[in-house]
């Protein structure tokens, strides 16, 4: 009997790095030529920079190609032709899928895909799911409100492509979804960390069901960095009795990165389908060496209708110095997506990444899964307030938790917080992407 394959694509995922660079250059030239010939928006951008496809001769030439920012896409889509502006590279009749970004950083950007693009999007997800142990015998439950957002639509199609049985848990409330899991015994699930935690809390606290006794043995997360934050991952894994894996993707990019079954505290970049560059935020220099954080500039090589070429994602990442023991040669980004350039803010003169607060909150036993951070001003001085909930029955731990959380936050973020304890269940709950960090200074 033949051994079960470890890799979705054993050729691409084990390609030596020098061959990956050659493949990336070949594919970059192809997609750059495609947009130059088919997108008025891109052609005009490159003509203004004096660049043509003939200028891409070496890997180093790629870094001179102008970047595209989300704000540019928004602006161009405000103009005719509706709804994609001059970004579309194919006739409108070839577009079969519409999706849009979440709008968490401004007006949503619309994304058009051909059927080939849609095949490609689910292909990029198939790499992820196979690496995380999804196999044809898996029954996959997707508790996702299927709508204009791309997340999990492509996960759904990829699971089908692998041969899994997919249960669309769409228009059901959380309790009905828990009951469906109990009834149909799925082995895998996909969701945002916020919702995975919230489902577990509902099962346990409102239905008397311990989620770890259900049949889910692996969970793929998306949409938020939680599954790469060790304390949040641990909390999800303990609650569900399942392995939790992270992945990163975006509507206008594709599913570009994934954690493998070894959980190497980082995510593989799918370097056969994407080119990831890390740019120093201050100098704009491309960072090749591991250990230095910068923002991600990304290219998707195979998307036709609305290609993504040197897109300034604003995600903060860094290369991991160590290769993964799983055998994949695709490089790892250490700790996943660390944050976003937009989210990192100065409070009392100290740089603060909201994920650092989450890491502290989620590792303290006795605290509920929700929290909220509010930054405002008291006179001219910044003030930062952390609101947390104690789990039912843990009220007597308030004083000790207060001391612990204050110490840990000072250690990890170098800031002093006003700490507020709220009754369990009173802080806002989120189903998709949470908005727990509120900077009110900008509205003053």
């Amino acid at each position: 009997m033949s051994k079960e394959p470890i890799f979705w694509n054993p050729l691409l995922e084990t390609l030596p790095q020098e061959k990956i660079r050659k493949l990336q250059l070949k594919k970059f030239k192809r997609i750059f030529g495609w947009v130059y010939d088919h997108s008025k928006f891109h052609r005009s951008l490159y003509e203004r920079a004096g660049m043509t496809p003939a200028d891409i001769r070496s890997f180093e030439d790629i870094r001179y190609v102008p970047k595209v920012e989300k704000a540019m896409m928004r602006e161009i889509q405000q103009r005719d032709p509706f709804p994609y502006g001059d970004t579309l590279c194919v006739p409108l009749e070839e577009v079969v899928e519409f999706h849009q970004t979440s709008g968490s950083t401004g007006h949503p950007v619309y994304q058009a895909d051909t059927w080939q693009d849609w095949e490609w999007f689910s292909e990029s997800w198939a790499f992820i799911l196979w690496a995380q142990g999804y196999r044809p015998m898996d029954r996959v439950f997707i508790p996702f409100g299927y709508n204009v957002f791309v997340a999990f639509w492509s996960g759904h199609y990829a699971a089908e492509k692998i041969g899994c049985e997919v249960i669309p848990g769409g228009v059901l409330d959380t309790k009905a979804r828990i009951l469906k899991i109990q009834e149909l015994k799925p082995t895998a699930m996909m969701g945002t960390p916020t919702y995975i935690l919230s489902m577990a809390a509902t099962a346990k606290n409102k239905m008397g069901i311990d989620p770890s006794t259900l049949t889910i043995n692996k969970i793929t997360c998306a949409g938020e960095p939680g599954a790469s934050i060790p304390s949040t991952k641990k909390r999800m894994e303990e609650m569900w009795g399942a392995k939790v894996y992270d992945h990163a993707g975006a509507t206008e990019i594709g599913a570009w990165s994934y954690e493998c079954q070894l959980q190497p505290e980082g995510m593989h970049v799918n370097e056969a389908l994407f080119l990831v560059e890390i740019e120093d935020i201050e100098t704009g220099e491309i960072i090749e060496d591991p250990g230095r954080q910068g923002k991600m500039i990304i290219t998707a090589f195979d998307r036709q209708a609305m290609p993504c070429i040197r897109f300034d994602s604003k995600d903060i990442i860094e290369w991991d110095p160590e290769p993964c023991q799983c055998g994949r040669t695709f490089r790892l980004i250490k700790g996943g997506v660390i944050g976003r350039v937009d989210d990192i803010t100065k409070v009392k003169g100290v740089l603060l990444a909201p994920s650092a607060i989450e890491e502290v909150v989620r590792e303290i036993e006795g605290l509920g899964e929700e929290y909220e951070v509010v930054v405002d001003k008291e006179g001219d001085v910044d003030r930062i307030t952390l609101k947390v909930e104690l789990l039912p029955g843990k009220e007597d731990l308030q004083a000790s938790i207060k001391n612990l959380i204050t110490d840990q936050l000072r250690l990890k973020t170098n800031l002093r917080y006003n700490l507020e304890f709220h009754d369990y269940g009173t802080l806002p709950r989120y189903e998709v992407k949470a908005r727990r960090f509120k900077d009110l200074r900008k509205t003053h």
Partner: protein
Amino acid sequence: MFQDLDIKEIEEKIHLMKKNVEELNEMVNGFPALEKNTSRILASINMLEINLSDLLDL
């Protein structure tokens, strides 16, 4: 085992399949059931190219 695969031969078969489906797609213009399904087959063939054909000549 994938190491034993003849990559060149597989690529030739992918290429031939694409050529056949492209020809079929052109032949069936005005026959939506065949035209649209051959278009979908071509999209799937593109996934074969991404997964294998692009690797040739590196």
